[in-house]
């Protein structure tokens, strides 16, 4: 265990704030993209890249590096921003996101830039890919670990549960899944937990509200029991508490015989008041005015 000192916690929080500013600037410059789910996982990525992963930005193909796999490929802006702050790419490149001629594709593409492990953008495939890498590590007698970040949407996909089952079956204790559990998806609200309007009765199976958001798309509850029943060690935390995240990730490292999942309770759009818990910013960039306001909040 490596306890985080107050001083380094402050540094990490400042790092995370820079990442959030990048996310806003990048998506605003692109005029499209996915700010909400990028902001929600920013702290998880900072905990990983700044404190947990064994990696070398100057040697992204290092065979013994820990692997980070982003299953929710639409959070690409967050990954690029963290990688830039770590030195994988120049920070100036970030605002070329999604532009022709830039290597910063709309969704992650393996090797672009070097250090991106998996091509993603179609949900549900990351945990399987991570399991493949984890099995290879064991076969080759290597001690690198694999971390896979999943979103709510990933957990809608049947393939994720195939991988959940298979990872426990193969006792892949070198594999850690982290769920960015913000409970908001493309069309609206996963369940009722983040839906504030209680005036309507909670309908079974979901419905579409006045704003055009689907409510109760697919509840994942009880999530902790599901993973535990599949044979995983389950840890839960506030997904914006860097110190707690680091503690959980450290605990996962020391666990033998089973993979670990960290259910990170997060807020979609975290850090920008008008994006928080707002499905409208799942797949929509801020306008220049909105970006200005967001950056003022993130000052």
């Amino acid at each position, binding site marked *: 265990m490596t306890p985080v000192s107050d001083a380094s916690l402050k540094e990490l929080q400042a790092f995370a704030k820079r990442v959030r500013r990048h996310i806003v600037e990048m998506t605003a410059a692109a005029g499209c993209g996915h700010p909400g789910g990028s902001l929600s996982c920013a702290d998880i990525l900072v905990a990983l890249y700044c404190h947990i992963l064994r990696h070398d930005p100057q040697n992204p193909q290092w065979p013994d590096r820990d692997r980070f796999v982003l299953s929710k490929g639409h959070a690409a802006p967050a990954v690029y921003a963290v990688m830039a702050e770590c030195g994988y790419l120049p920070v100036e490149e970030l605002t070329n996101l999604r532009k022709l001629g830039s290597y910063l594709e709309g969704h992650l593409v393996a090797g672009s830039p070097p250090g991106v492990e998996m091509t993603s953008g179609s949900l549900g495939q990351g945990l399987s*890919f*991570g*399991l493949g890498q984890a099995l290879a590590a064991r076969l080759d007698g290597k001690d690198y670990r694999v971390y896979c970040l999943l979103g709510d949407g990933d957990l809608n996909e049947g393939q994720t549960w*195939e991988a959940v089952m298979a990872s426990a079956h193969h006792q892949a204790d070198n594999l850690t899944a982290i769920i960015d559990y913000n409970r908001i998806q493309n069309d609206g609200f996963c369940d009722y937990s983040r839906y504030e309007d209680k005036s309507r009765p909670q309908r079974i199976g979901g419905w579409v509200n006045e704003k055009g958001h689907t409510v109760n798309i697919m509840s994942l509850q009880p999530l902790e029991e599901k993973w535990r029943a599949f044979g995983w060690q389950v840890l839960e935390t506030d997904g914006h508490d860097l110190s707690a995240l680091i503690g959980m990730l450290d605990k996962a490292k020391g666990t033998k015989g089973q993979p670990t999942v960290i259910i990170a309770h997060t807020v979609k759009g975290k850090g920008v008041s008008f994006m928080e818990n707002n499905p409208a910013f799942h797949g929509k960039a801020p306008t220049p005015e909105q970006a200005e306001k967001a950056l003022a909040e993130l000052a």
Partner: protein
Amino acid sequence: MTTKAAATREALGPTLIRLRREGLDIVVVDADLGGSTTAREFGKVFPERFFPVGVAEQNMVSVAAGLAATGKTVFVSTFAVFAPGRCFDQIRLGIAQPGQNVKLVGSHAGIITGEDGASAQAIDDLSLMLALPGFRVIVPADVVETEQAIEVAARTSGPFYIRCVRPKIPVIYDESHKFQLGKAHVARPGKDVTVMAIGVMVSKALEAAELLASQGIDCRVLNMASLKPLDVEAVLAAARETGAIVTAEDHLVHGGLASVVAQTLALHQPTPMAFIGMQDQYAVSGRWDELLERYGLSAEKIAEAARSVLARKKG
């Protein structure tokens, strides 16, 4: 004449074992059909390199992509209806787009899978696999060529699809044959008409050529096992030299051999053609030889098609 027969799928397990013993860093991911595809034989010899994932084709393909990303040569196999059929997105995103070193073996392809019925008969797998940039698509004609194709795939970096079949089909080659990526094989020379065939239909085309010979027609037979990359030179030479083309495949006539040959000829050398294959329909249960007859995938129908194309060439 005595013909040897063997199922092309029987080449998979033994070839992988040999190649591993020769030092290739091969691993196998399996979705509970390794007994049928013969991949399980590899697992018997190299248990630490054999990863069962249950009946979960999507997971199988993406796990394979992860293994390949660490430098492994990964083989996955199942029935061709299930892969690509059940995990096409995973193949596209996980293997094709990043160009991962995964070799997909689709076994039990075509209507000759037989008694299990349409749900087990892949007749659209080639359409799907030919649609993926960067994938090499191989349809061996017999078990000898299958072993060679597996070795070429294992020793060539990048994605491959190899199509195998369930029943024992004629062995047309001996060890002197050499499968070459991107090359058609002239299974029989001829100057009047060319039948281009893949898989079990190569042996049917050879039979058809015998029938045509007895009628005074000199029929060339090209084995188009390397469906992608296609031997464009051999296709154009056949068009130039024989002026009449028949394609024959145990697959829909849309999106497979017929389509790629027609597209090639349309671009370079329009030539009268006829297509033997499944015509926009699914087959039913039955013995494989009965099914080939019923759906017109026979030597007689190939010969008939050859004569009709010849008539158009002359007309």
